[in-house]
């Protein structure tokens, strides 16, 4: 009798158990995990990449960039034209519906772009909107964007980063409503949110034909926030997750061995570097001497570190940008690993026995910094490693209090060198070099609409930066993704996982 009771309770337990999420193909649901939680669906106020990924499912922009060809394609616009250096003209589609059923019109475009580019609105990344002077309606289905100055990045920003909101809804719901109940024109609509833990998106039945994003193949996308990666891997193995990203090289090897899983390594736009401040201590530090900076570059064994700790499809970098970006080239002076040359240059500069200095590190795995310290010690430069969170590290760098900063830069996922080289060398607070020639070249390149001219100027700037060894470019990053083997999905270099392109195979 007693035994029977036990059996009964077990059955009861299983009967009460809610159906475990059946992942993947079986119920046409694409289950995704993020480690970081998106903060808001009011995407101009967002700072996390995770939030932008959701935004690209929910919203559309005037144009889209074809990630394979780099070409700009009309999206909410049916056509567009660069009228002159400071004017862009768009003709809008007339068949695009928002998720609440209303038709997208020129008023929505004018309203959204004027609002988010106003100072009062406070867009999180000003760089995305601060080039817009004003937006006006030039016809029933036509809008014109006037720029404050010639802005070569305008199209990059319009393609993906400047989603169009429904005017009527936003006026009614406000930023608070948009935060959790967004309405866009995108291929998926958000149907359920538990902020910080779960986001359920459903294919938008009325998605407009002819979108460059294509028609979504998978019915539902469920995004969950799982802060612990081990939990993600457990779920990936038992099938309740279909896709995770930012898998460490070690974990990637382990997951690869599971028959139902696939692992992919994608080189991304982010690159690692050590910034050098030649003006440190009023140019009285060893780094004021170009030979010391060059020696520093020669001392670092990039290929060995990449092989041991970065892995996958990462590449050595030779300039402060990703070779995947427009305007970036590694056709400059290169400092390949050479201990003898490093030592000779140091001796020549008056430091035959090397010197001691401090290296501040932010957002970098410890072991990578430690190997670099060992590399430098081999040529006589003794560095004290100082690991910091990015806020104190950036502050120390901007205030010129440290000679060296090891970090990395992702260019907001935009494949244009204007957002990488210029971030550190155009005379802004992040530029501790302040080379007049470089600043002038970048100013020209950053404000020209002529792509060939820009290319030429960036190349000139990069040549100076390399020959002066103003930094130690280290390597580009890669992102490992692990996913259900029955999923067909390609991860892009700009890290905007475009889930709307996913399908089952």
């Amino acid at each position, binding site marked *: 009798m007693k035994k029977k009771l036990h059996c009964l309770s077990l059955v009861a337990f299983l009967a009460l158990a809610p159906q475990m999420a059946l992942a993947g193909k079986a119920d046409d649901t694409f289950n995704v995990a993020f480690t970081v*939680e998106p903060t808001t669906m009011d995407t101009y106020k967002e700072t996390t990449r995770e939030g932008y990924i959701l935004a690209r499912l929910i919203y559309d922009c005037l144009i889209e960039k074809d990630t394979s060809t780099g070409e700009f394609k009309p999206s909410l616009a049916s056509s567009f034209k660069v009228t002159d250096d400071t004017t862009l003209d768009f003709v809008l589609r007339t068949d695009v519906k928002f998720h609440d059923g209303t038709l997208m019109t020129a008023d929505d475009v004018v309203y959204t772009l004027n609002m988010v580019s106003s100072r009062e609105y406070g867009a999180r990344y000003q760089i995305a909107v601060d080039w817009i002077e004003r937006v006006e309606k030039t016809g029933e289905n036509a809008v014109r964007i006037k720029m404050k100055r010639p802005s070569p990045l305008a199209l990059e920003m319009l393609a993906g980063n400047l989603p169009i909101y429904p005017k009527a809804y936003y006026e009614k719901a406000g930023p608070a409503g948009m935060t959790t109940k967004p309405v866009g024109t995108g291929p998926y609509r958000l149907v359920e949110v538990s902020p910080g833990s*779960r986001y359920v998106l459903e294919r938008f039945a009325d998605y407009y034909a002819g979108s460059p994003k294509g028609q979504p193949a998978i019915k539902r996308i469920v995004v969950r926030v799982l*802060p612990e990666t081990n*939990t993600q891997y*457990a*779920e990936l193995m038992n099938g309740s997750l279909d896709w995770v990203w930012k898998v460490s090289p070690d974990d990637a090897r382990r997951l690869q061995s599971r028959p139902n899983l696939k692992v992919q390594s994608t080189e991304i736009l982010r690159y690692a570097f050590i910034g050098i401040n030649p003006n440190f201590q009023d140019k009285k530090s060893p780094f004021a001497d170009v030979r010391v900076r060059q020696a520093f570059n020669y001392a670092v064994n990039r290929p060995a570190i990449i092989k041991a700790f970065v892995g996958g499809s990462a590449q050595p970098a030779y300039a402060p940008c990703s070779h995947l970006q427009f305007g970036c080239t590694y056709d400059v002076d290169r400092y390949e690993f050479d201990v003898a040359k490093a030592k000779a240059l140091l001796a020549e500069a008056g430091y035959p026995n090397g010197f001691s200095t401090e290296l501040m590190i932010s957002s970098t795995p410890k072991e990578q910094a430690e190997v670099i310290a060992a590399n430098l010690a081999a040529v006589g430069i003794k560095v004290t490693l100082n690991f*910091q*969170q990015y806020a104190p590290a950036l502050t120390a760098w901007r205030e010129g209090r440290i000679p060296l900063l090891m970090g990395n830069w992702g260019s907001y996922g935009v494949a244009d060198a204007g957002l990488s080289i210029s971030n550190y060398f155009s005379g*802004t607070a992040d530029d501790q070099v302040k080379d007049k020639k470089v600043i002038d070249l970048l100013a020209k390149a950053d404000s020209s609409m002529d792509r060939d001219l820009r290319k030429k100027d960036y190349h000139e700037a990069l040549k100076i930066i390399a020959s002066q060894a103003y930094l130690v470019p280290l390597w580009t990053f890669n992102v490992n993704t692990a996913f259900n083997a029955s999923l067909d999905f390609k991860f892009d270099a700009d890290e905007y996982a475009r889930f709307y392109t996913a399908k089952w195979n």
Partner: protein
Amino acid sequence: MLTYCSQRAVSALLLMLLISLVAFFLIFASGDPAVKIAGEAGTAADADRIREALGFNRPLAVQYLSWLGHLLTGDLGRSIYFNQPVATLIADRVSTTLTLSVSAMLLAVAVALPLGIAAARWQDGLVDKLVLVFAAVGQAMPTFWFALLMIIAFSVNWQILPTSGSETWLHFVMPSLALAYFAMPTMLRLTRAGMIETLEADYIRTSKAMGIPASLILFKYALRNAVVPVVGVSAAQFGSMLAGSIVIESIFALNGVGRLAFESIQRSDLSTVQALVLCFSFVYIVLTFLSDLLNAWIDPRMRSIYGNPA
């Protein structure tokens, strides 16, 4: 009693203020909040704009007093990071944390008390040894490790329990077990030690000599005295479960206040951290107070402390 309560309330209030003051300055000591909020990709200009918009450029004392002023009007402030009222953020998460910690607490008490009594009753016997090993393992094993072992067993191999989320009661089984096993050993050991001590007391010997049934002695006379310190410790542990089950909340992806606190500190979300610190210290103080009352109810001798207003 009333005087005692009001004295406690005033000192509690001062304590909460002091804690919030320390927390406030610690945030600023850990790096410029404007740079943190601007994010890793934020430019110096972005940080400047944020500094101005959020008033971080004002003197710290002014900022603290302004926060305090809002608090007096019942306004916990808006989260800088989420741009939502902090009260909403906490309200969204508090039920998850409460469910987790209450179930873990009940589980821990349900295991610790009987095992502690049994171990004391059969001191140095086989039962005692097994119980002590069980407690020692719980004390020594890191919570996250135990949690991961359970995930591998119940979610990956047998697939009977969900790994993450808080949708159903099943989602709370593993987290509660992990948290309970972490909290249980202290309670168990205290119960055992208290029982052993009490069982050797004179009045127990007298009771035995009088022929009072053993079970009555054990559960009525001895337990009442032995359990007093356990109540105090449990209250403190319950408090730390409410505030600090960060590891468990992270592993099982429970979106509770512990995780909110941890991540808000990392994000320099000043208003959220301040509000949470205040709530946590409030919870601690209330719990300690309640445990005192509970002890007074269990042990009449302690009532005299409250009985004589000075």
